[in-house]
């Protein structure tokens, strides 16, 4: 007869950089159910809008999460800009696009590293993170910060990249592309990696749709949706297609994210070729009044920013729905019926960001 037991997982666990707690109900080695409890990183920063004015709040929005900090800042700024009818100068839009894609590359490389760490491939972990440092160096050169940049403001951006800097960056991206090709070979062809990732945690297209998955987690189940196609920043002028896979297992998620890195490098090249000269920010006068929904595509999927303003310098409400929140039901579904040893990998393949989720 099989034995039922409950194994607590987290909040402090070696594979988790962030705290989340799961109670895993096991039957022998098989997971029957996973019951999450969250709230370890809840700070309550949506309520800070009452204490910081709408310009200051950009800094708080950036600190929703340190990995997608640029995109959080941009999403919030775009929502406010839409309410105030501010037209962002084209150069600022292009710069935002470049920084967005750099964030995506750095986030995906970080994830690849953590994934390798989760299945015990230590040197692959180190290699991914070594490459990521190059992106952080470029961030530091262009914005002054490594993870938190404070380069967005309502109306545009604060810093510029000159021609020479862009040329340098493109050279670095060439290097990164070459190195990534080598890494890709290991990630996708290595025997050990394959045996840990193939056919583990399959999420079908139907399930992904019903459970409301977003981002690479959804795209690897065969749904071709990408919010960048909605046309914010400079994306309408760039040429790209959402990257998908039909398999829906952990391997597919790894594959999709790797291909997205190559796509991001391509997008940066396109943007660098097209970037126009001009202003960095539009003047912002008065206070916002009205409300707006802004949807952006973050490395982990769709993030929604809802901003409601009342005509004073303090906003009424800011609401953020982050991708991990949408992906949690899908993750719990894939955990059902898996082996205990696969739990860390399954949790990691949605690329969880707990501090986004709990804010």
């Amino acid at each position, binding site marked *: 007869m099989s034995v039922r037991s409950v194994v607590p997982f987290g*909040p*402090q*666990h*070696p*594979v988790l*950089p*962030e*705290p989340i707690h799961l109670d895993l109900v096991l039957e022998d080695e098989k997971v029957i159910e996973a019951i999450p409890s969250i*709230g*370890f*990183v*809840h*700070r*309550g*920063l949506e*309520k*800070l809008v009452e*204490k910081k004015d709408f310009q200051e709040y950009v*800094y*708080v929005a950036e*600190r*929703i*999460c*340190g*990995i997608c*900090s640029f995109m959080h800042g941009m999403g919030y700024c775009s929502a406010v800009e839409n309410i105030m009818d501010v037209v962002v100068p084209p150069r600022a839009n292009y710069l935002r696009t470049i920084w967005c894609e750099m964030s995506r590359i750095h986030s995906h490389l*970080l994830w690849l*590293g953590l994934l390798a760490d989760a299945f015990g491939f230590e040197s692959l*972990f*180190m290699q991914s*993170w*070594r490459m990521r*440092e190059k992106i*952080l160096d470029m961030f530091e050169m262009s914005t002054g*910060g*490594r*993870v*938190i940049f404070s380069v967005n403001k309502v109306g545009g951006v604060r810093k510029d990249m000159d021609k020479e800097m862009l040329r340098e960056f493109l050279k670095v991206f060439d290097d990164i592309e070459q190195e990534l090709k080598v890494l890709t070979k290991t990630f996708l062809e290595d025997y050990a990696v394959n045996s840990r990732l193939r056919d583990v945690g399959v999420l079908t297209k139907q399930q992904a749709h019903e459970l409301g998955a977003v981002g690479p987690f959804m795209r690897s189940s065969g749904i071709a949706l990408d919010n960048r196609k909605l046309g914010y920043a400079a994306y309408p002028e760039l040429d790209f297609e959402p990257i998908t896979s039909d398999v829906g297992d952990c391997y597919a998620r790894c594959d999709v994210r790797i291909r997205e890195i190559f796509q991001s490098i391509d997008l940066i090249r396109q943007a660098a070729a097209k970037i126009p000269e001009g202003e960095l920010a539009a003047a912002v006068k008065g206070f916002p009044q009205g409300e707006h929904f802004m949807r952006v595509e973050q490395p982990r999927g769709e993030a929604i920013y809802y901003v409601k303003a009342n005509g004073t310098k303090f906003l009424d409400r800011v609401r953020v729905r982050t991708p991990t929140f949408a992906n949690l039901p899908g993750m719990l579904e894939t955990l059902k019926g898996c082996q205990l040893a696969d739990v860390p990998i399954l949790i990691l393949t949605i690329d969880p*960001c*707990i*501090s986004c989720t709990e804010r």
Partner: protein
Amino acid sequence: MKVSKSPWLMHYDGSSCNGCDIEVLACLTPVYDVERFGVMNTGNPKHADIFLITGGINAQNAPVVKQLYSQMPNPKVVVAVGVCACNGGIFKECYNILGGVDTVLPVDIYVPGCAARPEAIIDGVVRAVALLDEKKKALSQEQVSSKEA
């Protein structure tokens, strides 16, 4: 400076924004790589000498942090990484933030920055190692005197 042992550190996210956490991890990976000084990251509090905490600690996290601290063997050093961990930082006014690690634990070393830079974190760890030696000496003296008494 002479280091008398390889310090092992444990890292825990006490309600931070993640920024400082990835910088802590960046210290352990190539480019900054503190492993070359014998510093290792461990997930087990019973193996750890240095406790790196990021973030301003919320109500749900406070008991977890206290428990992790109590599981670490003596002597131990607590390093608060990032402005959040030092005094609450940008989240100080949030309703769910207690305001710094020192509201729940005795903190030995404060590393400033938002996000704290890897150089600053490494500096903090180096100071922690020196402090660890001091604490060890004090501890052994205590034991000697308690035996004599």
